[in-house]
């Protein structure tokens, strides 16, 4: 990212928030009073926040601060990895369609249209039922359902790029299709892609939390924000801290990503959708 961009407060503020959250997720567990999966059988379970447990403890007496940090690692990882998966598929698909145009483009985009009409969330559920709850699968499944927008945007940009003189120059100089795509087209898509990616991350995090709600999420004792929020929402009156802290982090993160995406879009003047 260019330093000039970071001087705009609309970009710097959410970026700083995200940085803090990432730092907390990565290093927080070392600050926690006990490991995220340790159970103190003699302590009070479901305890309110105190000096010993800044976020309180969950209904099995585990330190919530440690769990929120560790859950954050997973949620952020889900967001980033599935976005990378969706980037890989979406950029390839969109760039190829846009570059070759004509019949190739028509067929490939028709496929995207068809996929748009599938109730995709249902497939994620079926996949989770079929293969069990493996972390890797969560990443891939979510990524595999969120590349459509990316493909459309990349295709549009590629079509526009193709008419640029420097691309003509590359063609004239005898570079092959693949080389032009990799060396000239894709680097020039970066702005659009960053914006789209920033907006895909919160989507992926939300999908994971939805799976957690259905009981198809991550495997205990590991956890995610979605799983923590879901547990917390069930007992929101008896132990409100169980909901407030993970939900706070979840919402703040999604907010920051959406905010950052909006600001980047404005700054880079990228198209919506």
């Amino acid at each position, binding site marked *: 990212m260019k330093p000039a961009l970071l001087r705009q407060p609309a970009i710097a503020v959410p970026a700083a928030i995200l940085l803090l959250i990432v730092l907390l997720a990565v290093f927080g567990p070392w600050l926690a009073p006990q490991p995220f999966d340790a159970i103190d*059988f003699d302590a009070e379970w479901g305890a309110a926040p105190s000096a010993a447990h800044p976020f309180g403890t969950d209904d099995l007496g585990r330190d919530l601060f440690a769990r929120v940090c560790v859950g954050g690692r997973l949620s952020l990882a889900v967001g980033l990895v599935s976005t990378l998966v969706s980037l890989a598929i979406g950029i390839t698909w969109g760039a190829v369609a846009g570059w070759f145009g004509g019949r190739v483009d028509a067929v490939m985009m028709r496929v995207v249209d068809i996929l748009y009409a599938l109730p995709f969330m249902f497939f994620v559920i079926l996949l989770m039922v079929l293969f069990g709850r493996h972390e890797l699968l969560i990443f891939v499944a979510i990524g595999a359902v969120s590349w459509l927008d990316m493909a459309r945007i990349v295709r549009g940009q590629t079509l526009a790029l193709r008419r640029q003189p420097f691309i003509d120059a590359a063609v004239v100089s005898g570079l092959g299709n693949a080389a032009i795509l990799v060396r000239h087209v894709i680097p020039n898509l970066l702005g659009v892609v960053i914006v789209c990616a920033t907006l895909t991350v919160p989507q992926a995090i939300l999908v994971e939390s939805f799976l957690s709600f259905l009981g198809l999420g991550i*495997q*205990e004792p590991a956890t995610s924000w979605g799983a923590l929020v879901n547990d917390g929402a069930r007992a929101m009156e008896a132990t409100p801290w169980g909901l407030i802290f993970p939900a706070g982090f979840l919402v703040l993160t999604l907010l920051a990503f959406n905010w950052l995406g909006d600001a980047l879009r404005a700054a880079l003047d990228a198209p919506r959708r």
Partner: protein
Amino acid sequence: MRAGLKTAALVLALLLPLVAWPTPAVLTIGNGTEPESLDPQKATGVSAGNVLRDLYEGLTGVSPGGNIVPAAAESWQWSDDGRRLQLRLRDGLRWANGDPLTAEHYAAGLRRLLDPATASGYANLFAAIEHGREVLAGRLPPSALGLRAEDARTLTIGLERPMPNLPALLAHPAASPIHPADLVGDPKPDARIGNGAYRLAEWALQSRITLLRNRNYWNDRQTAIGEVRYLPTEDLNSELKRYRAGELDVTTSVPSTQADWIRRTFGNELHVATYLGSYFYGLNLTRPPFAGNKPLRQALSMAIDRQVIATKVLHALATPAWSYIPPGIRDYTPQVPGWAQWSRGQREAEAQRLYAAAGYSAAKPLQVEIRYNTSDDHKRIAVVIAAMWKQVLGAEVTLVNEEWKVFLQHRRERRDTQAFRNTWIADSDDALGFAEILGSAHPRNDSGYADAGYDALVHEAGEARDLRLRREKLEAAEQQMLDDAPIVPIYFYASKHLVKPRVDGWQDNILDWHYSKDLRLRER
């Protein structure tokens, strides 16, 4: 002015349906998962049973306190050899549509239950009826069963082996009579004819089941509540909210994570009672690490602090279990092992000794999987047990959460499982049902426990006519099984309901059966 009044009245009329108005004459019951069927012989599951007990009346019934009482049969008598039960029906029994109800209809119900074409999940309950096994296997027609309607009011049931709990079993909805009209063709799921204190008025799937009092019921005069509604309440937290909003009089259960809060808020509206269910971990004896390693199995069992699970995890909505067959069951004494009384230190020391004897140490820790199906409480218990095994023994425990059907398949196959969550909930107040599922040939013997001595004891108990002998055999069988530790008992289930103070006549009983006809609604 008048126009204003009119508008006001109109607005009021429009707003009225927006207000949830509890109708005092209706009993509304949260019923958990939606019943998949209300066919008395085909339906399985607790929620269907609750409705069916209102819709059909068995030959026998259960009193609010849980005792077997006369229902459609006014009396019954055993033959001297204990292999024939003769029941005498009340005079003038009628179906809900007014047709006369005869002993033959009860016989037809039982034949249908055992007919393999019905594919009933409860057929095994009555397999001890003469030729029951052959009929179930399709080798004899259902008409060969030892059931005879001597006349319109007398039914004789012949047995292959003594079945002292037969009168109790006859109260089960699976033994309901069947109307001749429902035997032909496939009646619509909501169009069957019953003989209970209520009849089915409406079944809006996933929305409500409405019952109205059956005017043709022989004891209709004693029925106090005119309308009963069973609502599906799958999500216990949502159910709790609906109870608080006054939309339910009785809940199907309560979320255990909120038990303390519920006690504080609702006091004695919370009913917790012993229930005929046992929650345990099965250990797969057909594969390492548990095959042929009794000390290890015992060590794992001793390392678990049941008190912590019952009080801290389940918030006293369960009883800690050191044995398998629940307390409170008829004609049985719980077989609690001696070490249940030990102090925590003593118990853990012995567990560590056995663990070492089994060949494990800090350098060579046990690596074991706990498999459980998706559910909040299963998850919490697995997390806690994993922590106990880790802290007391140093075992490395992995949790494997599987979706229900996948879990069932793996558990049955006994190939991928090591330690796994298991449950048995009895269909009747009888210890034999519990003992049988650990028999080497039983399809639900998920541990693969195969012990000739145990099998023999359970078999002898099944053949015993004398209740004392039966009891001794069963108790000896459990003693031996507990020592072999193919399973790790964890807790005994409790039934748990929130019941509004306006519901009168609710009594806790071990079967957790509550006939609507025995309840009344207090006027406010």
